[in-house]
């Protein structure tokens, strides 16, 4: 694919995604903890000490898988994801290029846009970021992690372009 879209998303996106992944990534450890909990509580009245009730190789492999996923999600993927995200808004449409392993490029013709909104979760707010969601009659696409002003500006630009096109027709 040549002629890639021009704009990149905000550099803070990497940090925000890392924080997000650090928070939600704790879920990866649930299987390991769950297993350990069940194993220890299983034969509680039994004389064997608690550390002998756990199958340590199994626990460690579960833990290790979780750890690898945790690190990948928190420090490797955000970087790659940021590097791949490019977008461009023109009179004709919104062009988006993204994807870490599978490269995906989407265009939404301006005259098909039904509404645009900006979204901001708690982590994004901390880093003064917002994402812009563009909805058509069939799909919703999101440009993530722009700084607040750019996001507002983009939202206004798109809705202005939409109004211009719609009044033309």
């Amino acid at each position: 694919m040549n002629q890639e879209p021009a704009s990149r998303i905000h550099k803070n996106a990497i940090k925000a995604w890392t924080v997000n992944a650090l928070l939600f990534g704790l879920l990866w450890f649930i299987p390991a903890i769950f297993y350990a909990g069940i194993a220890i509580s299983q034969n509680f009245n039994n004389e064997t000490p608690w550390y002998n009730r756990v199958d340590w190789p199994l626990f460690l492999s579960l833990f290790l898988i979780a750890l690898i996923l945790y690190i990948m999600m928190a420090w490797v993927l955000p970087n790659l994801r940021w590097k791949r995200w490019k977008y461009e808004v023109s009179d004709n449409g919104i062009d988006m290029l993204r994807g870490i392993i599978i490269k995906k490029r989407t265009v939404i013709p301006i005259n098909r846009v039904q509404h645009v909104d900006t979204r901001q979760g708690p982590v994004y707010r901390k880093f003064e970021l917002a994402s812009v969601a563009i909805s058509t009659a069939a799909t919703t696409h999101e440009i993530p992690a722009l700084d607040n002003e750019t996001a507002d500006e983009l939202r206004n630009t798109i809705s202005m372009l939409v109004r211009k096109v719609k009044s033309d027709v």
Partner: protein
Amino acid sequence: MSEFRKQHPVAGVTQVIDSIKQNFITLLIVLFIGSSNTEGYFLYFLAAGLVISLFGGIFGWWFFRFRIFEDELQIEKGIFVKKKLYLSKDRIQVIDITEGILQRLFGLVKVEVKTAGGGTETATISAITREEAEELRTELRKRNNGNSNHFEDLEEDQEKKDQILSTWKLSTKDLVYAAFTSGNFGLIASILGAVSGQLNEMINEENIRFIYEIMPGYSDVTIYVALIFAIIVVSWLLSFLGVIFTYSDFRLHKTEEELIITRGLFEKKHITVPYDRIQAVRFVEGVIRQPFGYGMIYVESAGFDQNQKGRSIVLAPYISARAVSSFLNEFLAEYEEPEYGFKPPKKALFRYLRRPNYFLLLLVPVLWYFLNRGWLSLMLIPVLSILGWMRYKDAAVGFNNDILRMRYRTISRTTAIMKKNRIQAADLSQNPFQIRKGLVNFSATAASGAGGMNFGVEDLGNEDSLRIYDWVAGEKNIGRQHEGEEQNGTVT
């Protein structure tokens, strides 16, 4: 009609039947699980559910009333939560009058009133007399613009709008052919699945001994084969009857602003599709139908029922591939058929050949391990490769100024035609293997119901896919490309 009216009491019964239909799958599951338990207390659940829906039906009918008042269709309903639905006449776009089986027994009809716009709702009056329905329709179609002189013109206008410009009918012969070739593999698979769950119980020693006694000299393998064969025959019969019931007396009418479809043997359906709602047209050739040169035409329509994810409407249940062009010309003149300018390059052939075979990587080891002659499943490779080759041959994209046309095959062959300004989004995607080979998947999304419908062709060449993409995007990049080429002095 300014007084509130009630529906015919049959409406209560139709509601009960509707709720049974909606919970059909739950019911089946309950029956399957319940029947394997020896205690019959699941019957109480069933009875309780039935009683509740019965009361729902009766009181639903009791509280439902409707009237036309001050240019609005007003409907009030709801047992515990009262719901008032007011539809303004100006916004009403479609009025469909349908006869269900139950309604026909009592000489009644069902009326569906649909409005235009985004967050739309369908108002359904499920049982009133035909006269009432006609009265309702004429009343709703009158538009008082306050000016009584104007009024007659409007009525004339309406008449002109209602005039049928041309009609397409499904002949009885074609209906029978359509039913014969309708083999629905999804249905077969689901019945096989449901039965195989019960199989273990059916095939116990007693039964087998019994079968041996009446049919000496048959092994259990032949019994399995016979069973599968029987299931295929039964499900084929079901889909045969399904087609006969659904598409009997099929007529497609064209008026100035909409297409009107009437169909059905017992349940007479009436479907109105305004032209400005149509998002895409599909011609689908099933595996059984394609050799005969026949297929089915669908349109995708947007809006109306927000609960419905996709909304595909059958325009022609059985039509010869050669007749498609003239059919489109007559009923959907704006949908031209641009020549196919783009096909997957030669280097994509191998990818096409092996893609359908991927799932064998999973299937063959399992079968090999569990079955005696499991390795025989390797014989699927040539079959699937032929499918891959057909996919390669069929994949094509073409466009002119306003129309995009795509042809692709999963199992059936689909030809999709959509207007450029109805394309909601276009996608290119590349996995690492495709990047190395310079191949790209292209897909375009049209709106259908409240969701979207995706049409896509796999493994196009890099430049080809970008040309199509740029055409959807408004040819911004093509302009740029030409500038670049001018600088290099390679303008063609």
